[in-house]
């Protein structure tokens, strides 16, 4: 782990640090990060070595043990689980990168028409609760009633079921891959937006073909962000819970999520948190190894600096006649990822139950589900709390992560490699383990700080996903040369002034992406919310969970629609604000 960080600082004159406010801000950011990630990280590692299984890890009678390791890894299924999970994750990330990367390139670097519409289209899928997406795919590719299968059987006069079956490995990969494509679109898009096209133009002027320019100029310049995105998407796929539980168990694939599900839902007794934490040690190890190689590959960060003091304006490539197949591909993406799932969501919310759309059921449609949720006293409170939690955590994460990323990428300070390692950790901590850690921690400190049961616990807990934001900012800062900051420092500007005037404007696309991601995740998550929310801190995802567990599918779908409308509005506003600023810039 010696070289976890892309060391861009060694040849650069140090930005002058003023003790007082500058130092205080940086120290505060580091301390906040250590607090937000340290609590679940330490609890996770300790939980992996606490037992026996009929005790919670920090109960009085629990003690140190290695029993969780063989319980997690010592079965005949272990290698099958690794193999199946690897196949699933690699397949999903490959598909997701192909789709998300292509969309990002089209929107940010070409003259394809309807770019703003495509941007909004590309991010809608991440707003949809994953369980709804998975169910929508069953409606499309279910071997009995899936309408794609029905159409194919009708056209080719086939008998029986199929030909496609969603309950297979490729079914899981399609659903997860397209799901993760939004994350990839957002992250790669931010990098492309920041990329100076002068090098590409120079390549083209030298007679290189578009493909050669892409292979030898564009791709290498984007290496840091591409690697970061691939690693994050891979870990997301490994940890994915909803798709494996809705589709994967049916596909009889031994993915980690299934193993974790059974550990958390034992036939009797307490959830086996120790076993789950032991599993997550693998996630942590994989994360560290991947980011270690990331650091090795991006060691000479200046090679990847595509934003310098020279000023730039991204140039868009002319698609010419290729725009038609591109638009056709985007339309197919929109149909499968937005139109069909959204239609099924709306249909369910209006029908009040789960059924394939049909003409005969049109007469049963009503707004009853919406009336019911709006009549619930708690709906207003939950909506307000959800906004507070999502806004608060997104804001906290955005700014803490960018300051820490700046320190790690730009500053030559002792311990920054350890800081980088810790800051990268939380993507590998399963939500259920983090949730239990927060329950224990905040209940305990409530004796002195009365925070338990308030929305602030949720704000702090949701911020544990800071690693995601941190890695995006590290990649973004690696992409940006330090010349402007140095010029600012040479002019006598303080860190805070440089941060406000240089770093934030240059990183605005990344900040927007990070903010939206954390905001979306906070809106959708119910793993942490179920454990941490109380009567005064009810959030929408908990209300939706209540409806789902009571088989009130219509009301659950109506809440999902409300969530999507809220997130859609937020995304449109953010996109508008950032675009406006970039035009001014």
């Amino acid at each position, binding site marked *: 782990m010696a070289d976890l960080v892309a060391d861009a600082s060694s040849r650069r004159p140090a930005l002058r640090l003023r003790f007082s406010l500058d130092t205080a801000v940086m120290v505060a950011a580091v301390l906040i990060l250590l607090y937000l990630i340290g609590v679940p990280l330490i609890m996770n590692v300790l939980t992996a070595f606490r037992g026996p299984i009929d005790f919670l890890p920090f109960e009085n009678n629990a003690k140190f043990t290695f029993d969780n390791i063989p319980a997690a890894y010592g079965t005949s299924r272990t290698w099958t689980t690794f193999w199946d999970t690897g196949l699933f994750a690699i397949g999903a990330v490959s598909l997701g990168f192909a789709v998300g990367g292509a969309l990002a390139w089209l929107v940010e670097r070409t003259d394809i028409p309807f770019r703003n519409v495509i941007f909004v289209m590309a991010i809608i899928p991440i707003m949809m609760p994953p369980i709804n997406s998975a169910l929508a795919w069953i409606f499309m590719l279910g071997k009995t009633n899936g309408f794609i299968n029905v159409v194919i059987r009708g056209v080719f006069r086939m008998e029986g079921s199929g030909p496609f079956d969603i309950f297979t490995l490729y079914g899981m990969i399609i659903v997860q891959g397209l799901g993760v494509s939004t994350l990839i679109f957002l992250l790669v898009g931010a990098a492309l937006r920041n990329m100076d096209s002068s090098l590409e133009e120079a390549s083209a002027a030298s007679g290189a073909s578009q493909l050669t320019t892409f292979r030898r100029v564009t791709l290498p310049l984007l290496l840091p962000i591409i690697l970061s995105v691939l690693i994050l998407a891979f870990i997301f796929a490994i940890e994915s819970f909803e798709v494996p539980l809705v589709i994967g168990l049916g596909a009889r694939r031994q993915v980690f999520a*299934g193993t974790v599900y059974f550990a958390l839902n034992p036939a009797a007794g307490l959830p086996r948190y120790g076993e789950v934490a032991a599993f997550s040690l693998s996630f942590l190890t994989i994360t560290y190894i991947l980011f270690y190689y990331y650091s090795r590959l991006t060691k000479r960060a200046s090679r990847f600096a595509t934003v310098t003091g020279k000023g730039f304006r991204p140039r868009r490539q002319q698609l010419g006649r290729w725009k038609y197949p591109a638009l056709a591909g985007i339309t197919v993406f929109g149909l499968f990822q937005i139109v069909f799932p959204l239609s099924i969501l709306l249909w369910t919310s209006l029908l009040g139950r789960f059924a394939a759309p049909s003409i005969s059921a049109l007469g049963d449609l009503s707004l009853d589900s919406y009336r019911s949720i709006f009549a619930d006293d708690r709906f207003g409170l939950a909506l307000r709390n959800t906004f507070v939690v999502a*806004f608060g955590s997104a804001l906290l994460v955005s700014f803490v992560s960018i300051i820490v990323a700046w320190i790690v990428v730009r500053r030559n300070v002792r311990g920054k490699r350890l800081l980088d390692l810790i800051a990268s950790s939380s993507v590998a901590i399963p939500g259920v383990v983090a949730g239990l850690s927060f329950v224990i921690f905040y209940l305990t400190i409530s004796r002195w700080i009365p925070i338990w049961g308030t929305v602030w616990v949720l704000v702090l807990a949701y911020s544990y996903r800071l690693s995601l934001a941190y890695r995006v900012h590290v990649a973004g800062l690696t992409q940006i040369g330090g010349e402007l900051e140095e010029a600012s420092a040479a002019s006598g500007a303080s860190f805070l002034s440089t941060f406000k005037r240089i770093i934030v404007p240059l990183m605005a696309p990344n900040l927007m992406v990070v903010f939206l991601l954390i905001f979306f995740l906070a809106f959708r998550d119910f793993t942490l919310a179920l454990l941490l929310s109380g009567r005064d801190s009810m959030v929408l995802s908990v209300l939706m969970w209540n409806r789902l567990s009571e088989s009130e599918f219509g009301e659950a779908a109506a809440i999902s629609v409300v969530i999507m409308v809220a997130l859609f509005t937020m995304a449109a506003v953010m996109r508008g604000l950032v675009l406006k600023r970039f035009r001014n810039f």
Partner: protein
Amino acid sequence: MFNRMQYRVGTLAVVALMLTLVLAACGGDDPAPASPAAAPAAAAAVPRSTPLPTPTTVPAAAPAKKAAAPAPAIEDVLYAAALAEGGEIIILDGDDVYERIAARGFTDRFPGIKFSTEGARPTERSAKLIAQSQAGRIDVDMFSGSARDAEPVISRGLIAGAGEIDWEELGYPADLVQADGHLGIVWDFVYAHEYNTDLVDPADLPKKLTDFLDPRWKGKITASPFLYPAGFAFVALEQGEEATVALAKNVFDTQGITLTNSYLQLVESGEFAIAMYSSVNNTLNAQAAGAPVGFFFTEDMGTARLSVGLVKDAPHPNSAKLFFWWLNTEEGQQANLDEVSRARATGPGVDNQVSNIIADQNVALVLENDDNWQERARLTGAVRLGVIGQ
């Protein structure tokens, strides 16, 4: 340009932070205050001069001082005490069903008592309560679940038992009390197979478990990863572990059963014909929503007895007891049935839609009880390991 931009970005951040703080400041208080008209009325029911029972204790059987004066009804005593302790019930449950049931009669009858639910998925409920206890901050009153769900908290002394709660006084006869006096049974989770009535003729339905091996069902059955082993575990209590595990595995492998957490949606939508081991109340709920589904039984259908328990050191014990009392009344039982199709399936004097179905179809239920729930849990693990390998 820079100045303008940094100003705007900075302003945006400040505005966002302010908005967050303002929104938060607006929240945090009581989310659902009791009806203003109701609360004073409730308070008026308890004259200030009347000595109230202490908030944490209600005499198990308050002796009448004068033979001529009838003892106050237990619900009146509990109601007065409930108001005195704050008029609130905080439920630890997987969803907000009990709040909705209460809205069907309890809150009208006992105004001024507010409900709220601290959510936690079934297996996390015990963990949450234990964590609260460890931190010395128990803030829930009522635990809900089966004996299996409650075992970790009962064994740690976190649920009030004999001497701390008198179930008989609350109207629960001995056969409706389980886990050595810790839990009062409110409804029964009666296992049943669900089928899509558009896809399957009732005459073709399996009559016994081995009928599921008929090739006609191949690829047409789905099941919950939790309930499939749990349902077979009841069978194992009657037919033996080895034979049952073999049968469960045979059906699972031969018919290619699709395990998914969305098994109910998939049968309702017609993607699968049958969901093995769902429950009567799940199907009744779906029928009420207009779904084309029905249920049927095979041999040795299990019945888990779902209960309520009083959390020891609960902040509002009398409110919780009052609610327990009401849940056991005819009104409470009917509210449970009307809201979520949940009811007791068997027992002396039990007469409702669910119990009538059981009686009419002559279903031989395997009831979970204090003697067999641990064995049933073990067998669930055995079936799960034998069939799914987990």
